[in-house]
């Protein structure tokens, strides 16, 4: 039987060797110990000796060919024997081996590149933060805890950094700001507001006053400068924070990659308002008094949506991923921007559990302590602008989710009951869905079921 001669593996790192010289030709007879060919690795040159006697029946590679190790190089046997079974798939094998190599290395080089792309914004945002105000983590924590207005603090640390002792001193001087005014104040970056609150704290009132005053000042200054030259620096370039960039990107992506549209409806909120009142006045020992209207809606969604599988799903181009449980994304407005934590398996949780967990998630987002793991994995999202008086809006999908429910404010509506006009509290619902995944009628059916469940909330609870 014919015997194949393979390219030996000379060392672990060697993937392929180059045949530098053939000492035998096809058809030559060879004896044991005859040198068949010489081949090279990047380190050395080797001679391959014949291990068997016979005729060199076939040579699969020429001089200067790069041969993957363990590939058959030639075949020795008796004349007339077939060599086909040993054929290493010709140049194809070699070509594949060659093309695999760069591909693998290309992957290897892209991976770090991606990392760099991901890492860059983080670094940049750190620079932003520094550009605004240099403050040590410890000083910032102390300022937040004690209500010190660090924008008014004179830094004494190295390189103009605000350090702990500056905050301590500022507190003693009374450079304070109230918790409710803090967010807006810090964002405004004004820094020169005089506080009228308790102990000289800056209040929201002061902020409003400062705003008006500022406007008035520019208004007065305007005529004077118009005649002179174009006003300079009448705007401020605020670099985007990292989270703003992320939001911008994902919002744009959502709109440019999906076919989304919004359905609006409203329902009679009488029952849920009554229910909410009841729990609010319930005994503290029950621990239910903090259940909000939003919690009630989350609960209703979690119990309704499983019957509308296409909305509790991800649209993944060639397939739909239908979820067996309901993982509700809850849109939360934070000082850093929009965050959407996930309340997992909402369908398995009681109203009270949903309420408590939602509060914990919202709190964690606002504190900035939310685990990144909890910022993904939602199967459907609920966003609520009702508290801000919005009557109807078009929520933007969070792909690959197929739906997002907007919760609107409650307004008094009129309806005719037994020929009489009757007022009732109507709460708006705005459902955006991806038309690629689901058609209008089924989406509308979901809204209808949700309305029914909310209008008969006690029945839903009993289910």
């Amino acid at each position, binding site marked *: 039987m014919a015997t194949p001669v*393979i390219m*030996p*593996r*000379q*060392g*672990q790192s*060697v993937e392929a060797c180059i045949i530098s010289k053939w000492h035998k030709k096809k058809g030559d007879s060879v004896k044991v110990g005859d040198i068949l060919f010489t081949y090279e*690795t990047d*380190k*050395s*040159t*080797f001679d391959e000796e014949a291990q068997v006697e016979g005729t060199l029946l076939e040579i699969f590679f020429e001089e200067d060919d790069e041969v993957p190790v*363990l590939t058959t190089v030639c075949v020795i046997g008796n004349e007339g024997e077939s060599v086909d079974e040993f054929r290493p798939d010709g140049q194809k094998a070699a070509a594949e081996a060659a093309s695999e190599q760069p591909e693998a290395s290309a992957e290897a080089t892209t991976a770090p590149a991606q990392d760099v792309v991901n890492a860059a914004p983080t670094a940049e945002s750190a620079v932003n933060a520094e550009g605004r105000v240099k403050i*040590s*983590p*410890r*000083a910032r*924590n102390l300022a937040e805890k004690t209500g010190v207005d660090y924008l008014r603090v004179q830094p*004494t*640390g*190295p*390189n103009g*950094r605000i*350090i*702990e*002792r500056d905050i301590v001193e500022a507190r003693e001087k009374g450079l304070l700001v109230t918790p409710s005014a803090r967010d807006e104040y810090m964002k405004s970056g004004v820094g020169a507001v005089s506080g009228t609150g308790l102990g000289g704290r800056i209040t929201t009132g002061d902020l409003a006053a400062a705003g008006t005053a500022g406007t008035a000042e520019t208004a007065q200054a305007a005529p004077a400068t118009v005649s002179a030259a174009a006003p300079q620096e009448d705007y401020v370039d605020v670099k985007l924070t990292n989270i703003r960039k992320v939001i911008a990107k994902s919002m744009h992506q959502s709109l440019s990659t999906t076919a989304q549209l919004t359905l609006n409806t409203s329902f009679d909120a009488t029952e849920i308002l009554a229910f909410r009142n009841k729990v609010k006045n319930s005994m503290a020992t029950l621990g239910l008094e903090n259940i909000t209207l939003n919690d009630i809606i989350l609960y209703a969604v979690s119990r309704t949506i499983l019957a509308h599988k296409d909305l509790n799903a991800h649209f993944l181009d060639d397939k739909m991923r239908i979820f067996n449980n309901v993982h509700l994304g809850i849109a939360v407005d934070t000082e850093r921007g929009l965050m959407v934590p996930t309340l997992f398996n909402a369908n398995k949780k009681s109203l009270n559990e949903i309420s408590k967990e939602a509060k914990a998630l919202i709190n964690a987002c606002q504190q900035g302590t939310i685990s990144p793991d909890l910022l993904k994995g939602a199967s459907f999202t609920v966003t609520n602008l009702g508290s801000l008086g919005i009557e109807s809006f078009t929520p933007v999908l969070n792909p690959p989710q197929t739906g997002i429910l907007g919760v609107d404010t409650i307004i008094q509506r009129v309806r005719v009951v037994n020929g009489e006009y009757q007022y009732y509290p109507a709460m708006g619902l705005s459902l955006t869905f991806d038309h690629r995944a689901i058609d209008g009628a089924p989406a509308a059916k979901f809204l209808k079921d949700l309305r029914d469940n909310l209008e008969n909330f006690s029945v839903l609870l009993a289910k």
Partner: protein
Amino acid sequence: MAKQLFVDPKEIRKSGKITFQDIPVNQYNKTIEEEKANFSTDDFMRIFRDMAIIREFESMLYSIKTTNEYNGVQYFNPGPAHLSTGQEASAVGQAYLLGTEDFIFGSHRSHGEILAKGLSAIQKLSDDELMDIMKSYFDGEILKIVEGKQNSVKELAIDFLLYGTLAEIFARKTGFHRGLGGSMHAFFIPFGIYPNNAIVGGSAGIAMGAALFKKVNRKKGIVISNIGDGSLGCGPVWEAINMAAMGQFDTLWEDEFKGGLPIIFNFFNNHYGMGGQTSGETMAFDMLARFGAGVSPTQLHAERIDGYNPLAVIDAIRRKKKILEENKGPVLLDTVTYRFAGHSPSDSSSYRTKEEMDAWMEHDSLIEYRKKLIEANVAKDEAFEEILANTKELITKICRMAVDETISPRMDLVKVPDAIEKLMFSNQKIEKMEDRECDVLIPKEENPRVQQIKKKIRVGMQDGKPVSKARVYQLRDGLFEAIIDKFYTDPTLIAYGEDNRDWGGAFAVYRGLTESLPYHRFFNAPISEAAIVASAVGYALCGGRAIPELMYCDFIGRAGDEVFNQLAKWQAMSAGVLKMPVVLRVSVGSKYGAQHSQDWTSICAHIPGLKVVFPVTPYDAKGLMNSALAGTDPVIFFESQRVYDIGELFHEGGVPEGYYEVPIGEPDIKREGKDITILTIGTTLYKAIEAADILEKQYGLSAEVIDARTITPFNYEKVIESVKKTGKIVLASDACERGSHLKDMAQTISELAFDYLDAPPVVVGSRNWITPAHELEEFFFPQADWIIDAIHEKIMPLKGHTVKNNFTDNEIIRRNKLGV
């Protein structure tokens, strides 16, 4: 130094000459007929069988390495394989007479030695003994895998040996050491097979330490260090040979312990150190055996023997073993042999000719020995063919099992993520390594130093004034108390180093120890740092406890391999089978310039597997030495020559007289404070205290000063707690600032306490220069004002402070640009 030995100028200056005896070269010339008196037919044939097993084992590995296949078994083995094909007769001949009490240590090319020694042990052990060994090893885990249809316990044991070795080579969890050693570090202690070593010549010093263990603890058996001809180019090998033959064994050690160490330094001389040809190219010896003549008057009983004839090797071992048993060691053997395989399968043998290889193959011991046995009518040719066929079947069976993932899985680091982590340290507390009387010369309470210390004042300050140096209990007293205590508890404990005995150590830590201890427990070592550390490694892995000493920390460079590759690694590489109770004392110098003043804790801390401590108060020195000596892990015990005479200034009540331990890994708050934390390693503690005083008096700041005491392991909790309180931390030590372990600590603290920090942790280290003369040291080592300047510049500007040192950002950039 030894007062007993008179250096007589008359003798020394007398004229004369040194004479040598002849060194035998391949003198064995017996025929098989003559050897029939010593060997039965079974013996002759078993020798052949053992050689055949090794040959097939190595051929199998060669085939797997180069073709990914052996006899139908497919496998890819990315690990190393330095094969000994061609050297079988040497290995089998050497092992033939050895018992399990005789230890062999090997090299990167030792598969053959392992198998030969194992097969020899199996032949000698009873069935019960074999079963006991197999059942108890890893609770019979390997036995369960190989147990099958074997006809006898010996057959089962051979399967066990082959499988355990191969699974180890293939990095399987079912290998003799869980696959953590691998091809170049395989061994199996119950058969007297001690670690092989991937560092050329690495085994010489370790094996010498094992021989020291045998002598000191009156253990039976001899030790063989199997290394290659190339290794004679390594300094540590020379050191080991000299130390095994030190004159004091004959002149100074007590009668019972007289004579050099029971060790054969056996060189498997295959003529190539990788590709370098030793004789004629890289070495000066011409014939390796010549080396013995230069070492000692015994000429190490050196001899060249024919490693291609198993009977010649057996003959030599029989004669040399007797010499060792008569306490006339050590012995040097030049066992000539030749490897057919390359250094490794990727070797194209470009350094030798085909003619040369062919010529040696004609002398192939498997062919030559077989031919001789047939000619002498010991057996017929078929008998050999049968052995070869059986061997191939056996190796195929073992190979198939070893590559099978279901039978031979690897360590599952997903399921058991700490599988390797928990082997890095043994973390045991063993009061004494053996339970018997301690060899001492006088009762402890009669020791003059013990009596002197009794009169000392065990606190550093009395009535607000420092106690005088003459009366105060010093740091060196703390070390002494801990060490002498262990000498009276653990009979295996030995201590040695340069100038230890009589002198009492260069810094008087051991003063008084000579009076209590016989030579065999406490002696002066040659100026051979590599051999000092390596012997301690060998001593400890045989079951003893040792305190080797390097006079200056700077000399760690001389023992780099021994500290970083041997001492640190054997516990984990043995999968916990070996313990390493070694306390390596090193002293950080002062006043002695660039090569005698360096704090190298950072270098040691970088190496996994070492515990590193640096106490700088008498209380900590005694407590940490007690902990180190009670444990089973290698501890690099840093001391400082700046503070050997310091009294205890921190611990309330001073240094207790009784036994206590300071846990390794726990930092200590030396002074409480609330405004800033200063963490120190080493004697910079005292500069930090100075700085703390200045901060308090001049700037109204209260500094918390923490002494790390231990570098590895290290509990950060106390430091983080402090940083949470103060928000600021300076780290300072005498180590050069670049690459200092303090940088590592600063980075860890940044991660763990980021939100609490008022400034980045700041490291103050020595300059990245040579250590200048003592008179200029204040410009090199961190001083109190450096610490204050660093605080002012980088953490919290101090009102009215004028800096003397430059800690600005620009200066950091500038220095780094220049690499200084």
